[in-house]
């Protein structure tokens, strides 16, 4: 079943071109190499570091300005910012930082009903210790399962789109409900890298059309971000998205140790593994069906910042991911997919987002509008680049 096209784990024996600084290889979409064999993604990280002053006084200064603005604008409100939480390292640490910086964050959690106990306990320990309120939205579990299942049946790689977009829209819903103007995101380009452009794509129409085609239930409780809802939120709520970890030096490892000492927070053993559906997609479904392994994102970053040698990184990347023993059985049972059906799904020709209806054309037509919105910081620049071109 495992179709993952693993290369020789010894980087010196490899036949394909691998970046001389990280472990991205020629199969990564839109990759190019300079004269020294360094890839464009390494250069992109350098550029971002320069631009944001990451870990330097320039970065701290920029961030402090933003923090002051958040405090000022939220002065009369119960909460001045939102931090989305999953129980994972980055968002947990960001909550700790937000409190330390004197912000009054509201934690927001999108519960797709596939949480691990460790994630749930982490959220509880942390919020209790930091005295932070939580806003949770729980989707009807049967409906969520139906949506997840329909993405598996659709044969596309954006299997986590329903979760990611639901979460993204929930942040906007919570911002409106509590009239909060800032959403802090726990992303770190130094620790996780930037997802290569053109690798995947999703939007509200994509989710709706796939669910209509392959689902069996009505969509009733899932927070679907349609085009209208998206635009309404941008224009009326005017929420700004801030990524504080882009400005400061940040180490996942140190963060984990710190959180553990702070409140007994525990590491769950890997990126995305705090949620069982995410764990399934990252350790079983994507490597098995799409011959693609999103671990190279994180591993490359770890190599770039020197937490791991190129040799070791390549070797880890080319060793099949560790799979929780009963995870596949659990997923098949819960999604009511038989062994034969699952085998069939995994062997079927993969399809792409281009095979299903999306808003992509509409975003492209409205390029001018989104250019303006990006200028005003109402949509991230990365959104403009990814969705409008």
């Amino acid at each position: 079943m495992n179709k993952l096209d693993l290369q020789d784990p010894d980087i010196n024996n490899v036949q394909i071109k691998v970046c001389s600084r990280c472990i991205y290889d020629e199969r990564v979409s839109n990759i190019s190499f300079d004269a020294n064999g360094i890839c464009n993604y390494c250069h992109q990280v350098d550029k971002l570091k320069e631009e944001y002053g990451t870990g330097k006084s320039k970065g701290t200064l920029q961030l402090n300005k933003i923090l002051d603005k958040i405090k000022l604008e939220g002065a009369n409100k119960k909460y001045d910012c939102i931090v989305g939480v999953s129980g994972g390292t980055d968002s947990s640490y960001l909550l700790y930082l937000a409190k330390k910086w004197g912000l009054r964050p509201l934690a927001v959690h999108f519960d797709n009903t596939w949480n691990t106990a460790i994630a749930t306990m982490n959220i509880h320990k942390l919020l209790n210790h930091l005295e932070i309120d939580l806003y949770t939205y729980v989707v009807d579990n049967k409906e969520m399962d139906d949506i997840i299942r329909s993405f598996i049946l659709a044969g596309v790689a954006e299997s986590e789109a329903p979760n990611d977009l639901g979460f993204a829209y929930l942040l906007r819903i919570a911002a409106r409900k509590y009239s909060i103007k800032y959403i802090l995101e726990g992303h770190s380009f130094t620790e996780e890298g930037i997802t290569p452009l053109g690798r995947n794509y999703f939007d509200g129409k994509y989710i709706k059309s796939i669910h209509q085609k392959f689902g069996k239930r009505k969509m009733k409780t899932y927070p679907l971000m349609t085009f209208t809802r998206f635009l309404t939120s941008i224009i009326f709520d005017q929420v700004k998205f801030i990524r504080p970890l882009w400005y400061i030096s940040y180490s996942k490892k140190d963060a984990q140790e710190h959180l553990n000492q702070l409140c007994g927070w525990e590491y769950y053993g890997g990126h995305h593994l705090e949620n069982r559906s995410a764990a399934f997609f990252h350790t079983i479904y994507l490597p098995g069906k799409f011959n693609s392994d999103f671990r190279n994102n994180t591993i490359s970053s770890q190599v770039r910042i020197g937490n791991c040698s190129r040799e070791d990184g390549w070797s880890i990347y080319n060793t099949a991911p560790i799979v929780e023993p009963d995870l596949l059985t659990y997923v098949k049972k819960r999604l009511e997919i038989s062994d034969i059906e699952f085998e069939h799904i995994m062997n079927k020709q993969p399809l792409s987002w281009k095979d299903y209806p999306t808003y992509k054309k509409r975003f492209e037509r409205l390029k001018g509008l989104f250019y303006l919105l990006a200028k005003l910081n109402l949509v991230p620049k990365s959104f403009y680049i990814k969705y409008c071109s």
Partner: protein
Amino acid sequence: MLRTRIIPVLLLKGESLVKTIKFKNFTYVGDPCNSLRIFNELEVDELMVLDISASKEKKSPNFSLIKDMCSECFMPLSYGGGIRTIEHAKKLFDLGIEKIVLNTYAIENHLFISQLSSYFGSQAIIVSIDIRKRRFAKKDVFSNTFKSYLNLDPIDWAKQAEELGAGELLLTSVDNEGTWQGMDFDLIKNISQNISIPLIAHGGAGNLDHIKKAIHEGGASAVGLGSMVTFQKKGMGVLIHMPKLENFN
């Protein structure tokens, strides 16, 4: 002193877990099996799952779901909802359910309690009594299935249930349920003084003091918790957890 028994009481509606306020306004809590898995990792001694839609929709217990729940659950699990025959009960015990909880059908057919009790032993039979205040402050047994009062005195019905063979009583105050504002301590006391079987007090617990009071002053032998194990705190988001019981006993 015996360890205080704290029992998370989880409500099943269809195939989803929900939480109600005064038996209304339900919110989604999660997937039953996934939630039981999470409770497994927490220090929970026993659990209770009540299917609140089975009787209303005249359905039998959802055995395939219960089977899955039993396989996720390592601690003793009680189940109630839609049990109307000896066969239902037998099947539930076969699946691994430790105790069964009777409500609607026990009211319709008192002898059913005795039948089950003589078949399976009274220790496996919990009778669940829902109490709601009527106008002019008289408390009455309430049937959620039929949305009506039963003109039954709570104490009389509790005593009767014991005589019929119930091994334990689950007492839920509908007016307090989901409010976090404290339990109906008078009611708990009144009932516990009139029966000799263990009483699980349920409905309204919002902090550790409430739990203590139900046990020490009310004479309950266990407390059933809904909101306190389901939400971060009052008015806040869903987050399954167990309250810390240190310095408690």
